[in-house]
């Protein structure tokens, strides 16, 4: 039997983490290095996936499927296609960097590193699992380590932020769980691919009619599908987050330790968008088409309010957190645009843009949070008004921060430009008014990011106690790989676009 590569990637961090727990707690150097090495294994394996992935196929690859709880039709079901491959690579890549970032942690180091490994297993599982039960297991597993990372290693207001993060997410999860139970009763399956086929052929609706009649409910299947759609979407909307469900995010980001923010912004938010792509679009295409224009307004609100709110912040981390709301808004705009009426070419552009934007925001948000962490380690403040003149004493930092900022605001030649261009190019003919209004978000983003740069790097030097060295070699080891990907995707985006292309076209067949 060949090596089940997906299971290996998925469970390696957890299994390795359990062995890791046996190491002596006081050998901190050993703990750091071994956690980093453990996280490199899934990273290299995911590189193997990238190289061996068959780009000419739309089918799921490396399928692993076995019965798990036969009484309720639950399978152990892992597979990868173009939608998830990029996210899996991003996850293994950012987790390694996050662990590298965390070398300065002293308190409860072993638990801290173990939680990161557990988190990696959870996130990878979400991007690989294709059975609701299996998916949900990992969806919730990802919640627990992040809760403790914020609660134990966060800053002053950490308890409130951790609680809010947990309860918000769980609220969405319960809604999703209930919705899938109902769909299961009608269809007898938890399998995403089967549910999508049933729904697209109209059989799911017929089965729902039977179920509602048997239960004596006077609801039409359309209404049931709509309720289920909103219940499932709520879980993902909270995770993305879409306005007005975003309020947990600035708190969680501000309080989380640097590496926690990197992973939170870099990967956890993508789980929400991925949920829309993997679950909502294929299973609820009709409902999405009905509500897309309205939901587009929510995406617009995320874009504009996120940008305006970011402009109003003086706390650097809060500013970048709100800019994440803004950037994820573009993803949602693209997704809702796909469901609108229009030509397939535009939809393909929008969907490609969404996938690329997920990857790009993962890279640039992680980089920005890391840079803010570097500053915080030196200045012990995140208050923008306290900084100034850093360009002179930290030239390397200024350069790398500049690149990350320009990547985030969409400068051509860097990664963010391409994905935002594709989204706007795609959604313009599909949702013209909304797209025009959303360009306002680009403008405001440019304004506040440039203001931030100016405050940090120009003017008189801020008053700081103690030495203020430029970036260390260790910090460069984290920052440079991120900057490398900003350029790589900016100059040669097709290496990612090609991966996803077949899966994108396959997904769009539903809407054409």
């Amino acid at each position: 039997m060949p090596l089940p590569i997906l299971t290996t990637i998925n469970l390696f961090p957890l299994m390795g983490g359990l062995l890791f727990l046996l190491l002596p707690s006081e050998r901190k150097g050993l703990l750091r290095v071994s956690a980093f090495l453990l996280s490199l294994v899934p990273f290299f394996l995911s590189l193997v996936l990238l190289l061996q992935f068959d780009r000419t196929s739309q089918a799921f690859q490396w399928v692993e499927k076995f019965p798990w709880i036969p009484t309720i039709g639950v399978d152990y079901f892992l597979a990868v296609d173009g939608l998830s491959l990029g996210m899996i690579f991003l996850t293994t890549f950012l987790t390694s960097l996050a662990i590298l970032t965390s070398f300065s942690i002293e308190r409860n180091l072993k638990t801290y590193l173990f939680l990161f490994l557990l988190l990696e297993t959870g996130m990878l599982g979400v991007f690989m699992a294709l059975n609701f039960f299996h998916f949900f297991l990992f969806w919730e597993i990802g919640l627990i380590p992040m809760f403790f990372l914020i609660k134990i290693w966060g800053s002053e207001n950490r308890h409130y932020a951790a609680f809010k993060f947990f309860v918000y997410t769980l609220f969405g999860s319960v809604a999703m769980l209930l919705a899938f139970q109902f769909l299961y009763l009608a269809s007898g399956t938890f399998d995403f691919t089967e549910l999508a086929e049933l729904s697209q052929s109209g059989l799911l609706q017929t089965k729902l009619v039977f179920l509602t009649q048997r239960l004596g409910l006077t609801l039409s299947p359309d209404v049931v599908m709509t309720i289920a759609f909103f219940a499932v979407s709520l879980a993902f909307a909270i995770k993305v987050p879409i306005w007005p469900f975003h309020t947990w995010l600035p708190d969680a980001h501000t309080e989380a330790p640097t590496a926690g923010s990197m992973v939170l912004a870099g990967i956890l938010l993508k789980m929400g968008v991925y949920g829309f792509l993997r679950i909502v679009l294929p299973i609820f295409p009709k409902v999405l088409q009905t509500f897309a224009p309205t939901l587009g307004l929510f995406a617009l609100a995320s874009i504009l309010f996120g940008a305006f709110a970011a402009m109003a912040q003086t706390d650097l981390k809060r500013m970048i957190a709100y800019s994440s709301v803004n950037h994820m808004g573009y993803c949602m705009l693209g997704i809702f645009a796909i469901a609108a009426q229009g030509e397939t070419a535009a939809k393909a552009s929008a969907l490609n843009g969404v996938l690329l934007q997920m990857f790009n925001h993962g890279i640039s948000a992680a980089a920005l949070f890391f840079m803010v962490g570097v500053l915080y380690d030196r200045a012990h403040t995140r208050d923008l008004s306290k900084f100034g003149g850093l360009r002179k004493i930290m030239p390397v930092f200024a350069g790398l921060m500049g690149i990350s900022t320009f990547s985030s605001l969409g400068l051509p030649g860097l990664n963010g430009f391409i994905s935002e261009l594709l989204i706007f190019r795609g959604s313009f003919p599909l949702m013209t008014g909304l797209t025009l209004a959303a360009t306002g978000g680009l403008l405001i983003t440019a304004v506040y990011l440039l203001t931030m740069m100016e405050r940090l790097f120009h003017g008189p030097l801020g008053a700081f106690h103690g030495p203020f060295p430029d970036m260390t070699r260790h910090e460069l080891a984290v920052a440079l790989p991120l900057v490398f990907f900003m350029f790589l995707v900016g100059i040669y985006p097709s290496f990612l676009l090609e991966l996803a292309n077949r899966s994108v076209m396959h997904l769009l067949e539903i809407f054409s």
Partner: protein
Amino acid sequence: MNLLSGTFWVSLAGALVILLLKKEAHRAIKWTAALTGFIALSLSLLAYFHYDLAFGGMQFILKRPWIPEFGIDFHVGADGVSLPLVLLTGFIFFTGVLIAWNIEDRPKEFFILFLTLVAGVFGVFVSLNLFLLFVFYELAVLPMYLLIGVWGSTRKEYGAMKLTLYLLVGSALIFIGMLALYFKSGIQSFDLMKLSEVRFPTNFQKIVFPLIFVGFGVLGGLWPLHTWSPVGHVAAPTSVSMLHAGVLMKLGAYGCFRVAICLLPEGATFWLPWIAMLATVNIVYGSMIAMVQRDFKFVIGYSSVSHMGFVLLGLASMDPVGVSGAVLQMFSHGIMTGLFFAIVGRMVYDRTHTRDLNELGGLSGPLPFANFCFIMSGFASMGLPGLSGFVAELQILLGTWNRYPILAALSGIGIVVTAAYILRVLHKVFYGELNEKLHHLEPITTVEKVAGIILVSQLIFIGLFPFVMTNLIYGTVEPLIRRLFP
């Protein structure tokens, strides 16, 4: 020797041996109790894995005449519903003795009563004769009065009295129902298997069903008759709370199923929709009350009320998947709440001498093991996947959707509020500022760790490999429910 009745006889024999020991011989008494617990646990594990899945139905049957003139036999046996509960009793019995290891006050009497109580519980789960079941039921309930009244804390006399009065009222209802069944059946027998073949008249079922169901339901914590339970939990000494919430409340739910639902299906069809509503109130109301408690033990007490609501809701679903979920939830909740009470009573209260959530805080530093256990049982109680609670609640909700979709949706509120109160307690007890007075706490002993690890491993094992239990339960429940509710 019959494996099943072995669990019962061993517990009783243990009580007798302790009776013969000198009352100063604390060590000997504890070791006897622990050994008894270990043997009982091993026997229940053996029975569990000796059950022939392919054959199904009642197994390990043993029948000896006792008072044959009245159709009373010593008649035991077990199926996929009772075996998980026997196993649960084994686990809680053994870990309960370990948790009571530090008892100093009259250990001899304490363990005699404790072992008698356990014997009664084993007896109920394996009885196939209604009369025998009732005798064991009383044997399990009465020592509780003394255990709480003598060894308890916080308003122990009130708690013990309230508990006993409620349960006696419940017993009276069951007794009336039982006699009604006996005379109406026309076969003058208490044999559960024979009675289940009798078809009682519909109107008779409608009258007797609520008597028996409510009678057992009192012990199961059915709202609004649950109020004895948090008070009793709080007053009881730790290992008794573990037995009480972990196993005794399951006796109630088990009786509801085995006697009321299985013998009176038409009455069940008529009444269960109402019971389902009460059960939903249990879930939502219990969790909300738990949210506002100041006493650590009361939080756990009300959380049991809320979780037993899921058991009752599953039973009321009259659906094979839902009822299977209810049985699994009984096991899962028994382990989880046993662990909860071990943490609250033994690991925390015995060291801090306070259960006030505002006085506790920061215990993750001095008591990391207690913190770990609380996190595991807390997450199991929220129903996070990967732990036992999820599979059970998933099945219960699936069954409930099938019959009462609105109630299924409402019970979702309970799940969210549960997460909120668990996180609140986790924060108040284990994080935040460490109280000045709590700086020097004795570390967790090895005996406590053994008990904790046994229970935590069950939560994880059932969470990851639920089929070890679901196959057994579903195999029994599915044909039974199909026959009862065609």
